[in-house]
């Protein structure tokens, strides 16, 4: 009974969610996200649907296991309940053959689930290590961004016309130069992520410390996590250790003109829930307008060596 109720709830839930979203008044100018497969928002990265497929695969395997095991349990509870005329239980200490069988069957299924995570275009290693980069040199035609997360804002640093990222120093930070770039005029810094579709996108993730130039006080950067549910991608920003992610947006996404979000998925302090930034997929024309230059002519070959605050201190001495 319980199993059936839960399964019914599971199946009814997407419809229910859709109904609710249609009824709920949406914020002005904000398009309501249509819940996609299994309540998930649209997958816009090339590997997003593959990730969903793996979710669905595990959903069915565990769903069947759930129904069988809980169903058997309920059946046993009903069938072998204590009642008139049933005073004895069957005396047995187990059955080795049966136990070996179900143990091996479980192993096979689990190893299968594990191995399928690793293969194909949506495999774990493809997503996490398949950067469009070779020997530290970015492949031509890759859209490159440096992302900085600080308490509690995202900054997106685009290379600028010269196709070269500026060095970053905490001591350069000011209200007009939130990241602390060497020459902020040479780069483009936006509070939102704008990307083209159908090209490889390589992003370097940096956690940014708090530096007050007036009092010259510095606070350690903290962990954040770059999360876009639409990309099906998550990666922590580790203080002092820049990380990388890559993705590619599906062709045709820009046309839809939807607004997505980059949110923070790792607790970073009191403003954690408000740490999000708009994320837009733009056509080449719109992107050029937004950036003020044609990104294709300005692809940097390398990310600059990161300079940490304690290194800055040593240099200053």
């Amino acid at each position, binding site marked *: 009974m*319980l199993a059936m109720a*839960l399964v019914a*709830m599971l199946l009814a839930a997407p419809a229910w*969610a859709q109904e*609710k979203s249609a009824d*709920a008044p*949406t*914020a002005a100018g*904000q398009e309501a996200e249509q819940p996609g497969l299994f*309540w998930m928002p649209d997958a816009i990265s090339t590997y997003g649907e593959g*990730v969903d497929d*793996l*979710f669905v695969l*595990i959903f069915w*395997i*565990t769903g069947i*296991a759930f129904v069988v*095991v*809980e169903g058997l*349990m309920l059946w*046993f*509870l009903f069938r*072998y309940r*204590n009642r008139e005329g*049933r*005073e*004895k*239980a*069957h*005396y*047995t*200490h*187990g*059955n*080795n053959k049966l*136990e070996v069988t179900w*143990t091996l069957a479980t192993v096979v299924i689990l190893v299968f689930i*594990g191995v399928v995570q690793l293969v194909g275009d949506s495999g*774990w290693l493809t*997503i*996490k*290590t398949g950067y469009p980069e070779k020997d530290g040199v970015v492949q031509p035609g890759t859209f490159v961004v440096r992302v900085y997360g600080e308490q509690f804002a995202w900054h997106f640093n685009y290379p600028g016309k010269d196709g070269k990222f500026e060095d970053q120093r905490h001591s350069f930070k000011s209200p007009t130069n939130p990241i602390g770039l060497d020459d902020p005029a040479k780069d483009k810094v936006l509070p939102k992520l704008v990307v083209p579709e159908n090209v490889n996108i390589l992003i370097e993730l940096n956690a940014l410390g708090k530096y007050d130039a007036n009092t010259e006080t510095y606070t350690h950067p903290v962990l954040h*996590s770059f*999360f876009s*549910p639409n990309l*099906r991608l*998550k*990666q*922590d920003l580790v*203080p002092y250790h820049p990380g990388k992610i890559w993705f590619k947006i599906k062709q045709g996404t820009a046309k839809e003109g939807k607004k997505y*979000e980059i*949110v923070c*998925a*790792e*607790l970073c*302090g*009191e*403003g*954690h*829930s408000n740490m999000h930034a708009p994320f837009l997929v733009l056509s080449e024309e719109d992107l050029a307008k937004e950036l003020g230059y044609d990104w294709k002519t300005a692809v940097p070959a390398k990310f600059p060596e990161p300079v940490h605050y304690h290194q800055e201190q040593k240099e200053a001495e």
Partner: protein
Amino acid sequence: MTTETKENVVTEDHAEHHEMGFWGKYVFSRDHKAIGMQFMMTALFMLFIGGGLALTLRMRLAWPEAEFMGVDMKQFGGETYNVLFSMHATVMIFFVIIPFLVGAFGNFVIPLHIGARDMAFPFLNGLSYWIMPLAGFVMFGGILLEGVEAGLKSGAFASGGWTSYPSLSVIAGYGQTLWCISLIIVGTSSIMGAVNYVTTIVKMRAPGMTFGRMSLTVWSIFITAILILFGTPVLTSALIMLILDRHFGTTFFTNDGQPLLYQHLFWFYSHPAVYIMILPGMGIASDIISVFARKPIFGYKAMAAAMAGIAGLGFIVWGHHMFQSGMNPYLGTYFMIATMMIALPSAVKSFNWLGTLWRGNIHFTTPMLNALGFVSMFIIGGLSGIFMAATTVDLMIHDTYFIVAHIHYVLFGGSLFGVFAGITYWFPKMFGRMFSETLGKIHFVLTFVGFNCVFFPMHIVGAAGLPRRYAAYIGEGASKTWEHMQPYQQFMTVSAIVLGLAQVFFLIALIYSAIWGKKAEKNPWKANTLEWTLDSPPPHGNFHPDLPTVYHGPYEYNSALVEEDYLPQDRKLEAAGVGGDDGQEDAPSGEGTA
């Protein structure tokens, strides 16, 4: 091999002290049963503190900008919200679940089940309890120093989550230091308890009580104690390093140090800690299911081996908490495969519980219902674990409500139902009266339904990517992506209120039964283990004048050797030629007849 246990010098010596007065008997007692009940009462009290925190944050999530009875929900945003969930988790894990399962049941049950007069080190046992309140005072020291409101402003309470990752925990207010010190004290208490349990189980089993005749509850706590001994020192060192980073200028986790190092150290303890919180529940559920199915446990050896397997594998899978942390992805691959393997012993246990029910004679008492609740909810918690163990799927659901759902299915649906099962099962031995069946069943139904209504929808919002540890998903400054899911939040909150009220009901039922409940006989459940041969409640020193001699395993129900459908462990059978004398194996194992 167990003959030396006849000379229980330590406890026999101790068992003579009968007149100890009020303070000696109820407060600074060295009697394992009194200490167990002290742990239980403390954990019960803390359960309501942790529950209150949970309800507050659920109210905030459902209606972040509303006002209820003069309480403005806006004040629970930001840092206050972080304090709420950090304290909720810390209280529930370190002051409720572990004291309940390890402190209360470990203390109360081990000597009774193995036929000993007390723990090996009664004073250490009392000490392990009495430093727990101290840890509580340190944790909430900010209230004493500044009061709640001022304390929240000045950072007197930890707000870094129960994980307290640096660098956030390095730059946080002084409450973080209190939190570290408090957990070091709790860890010390755990280690004291664990040393006691291991020594008692290894050295003080009654004659005839071989390892193969120990109940699964004792096995589970034995394995848990070993986990505690290996894991806790690692957490303690991580906490000390964190304190050094905060106050003494070291850089283990900052500057030239490595923030991920803390995560590795933390999860090296805290993943096994998850098993510390579930294994005793498994043991208790196994015992209870066997008693009320009136059937031997299906695959006793496999059950014990599975628990040992879970414990062993538990130490090599910690990295699955760190798939998206920046850890090397190839290492993630290893941790995924290792984690998949840990689902195996869990599955074996679930199948064996099913096997125990199969062709049984099932009595639906309150403890049985709670034990079945444990099994069915643990199955869901176990299956949902496979999602996040899969690295690629984890990309989406890591740090979302899917994880919150999973941990609550394991720790509430699992451990806490195990606790309810244990309390109602041993209640006659604890209080000398029966737990009211009617009230117990009402509590079970309310809790079971309420629990599923609170936590099942979390899978759905989690699959949509709803991040955890957010103070609000609608309203000013909030992300817009999950606005349409707000009705789920409200539904979960309303259900959480029902769930909370059901626990108040449990408290009332417990007090009612302890005072007005039906007087308990020696063996109300007709169970086999040794505690049921004693008065309810058992006298100080348990077994008088002689220690019992054990002839059988603990699960001889419906054995053909006797008329009754149970066979107490200490009952000597006269008939020759059958198992039941001092032979190691009296229980036929292997082929069952289908």
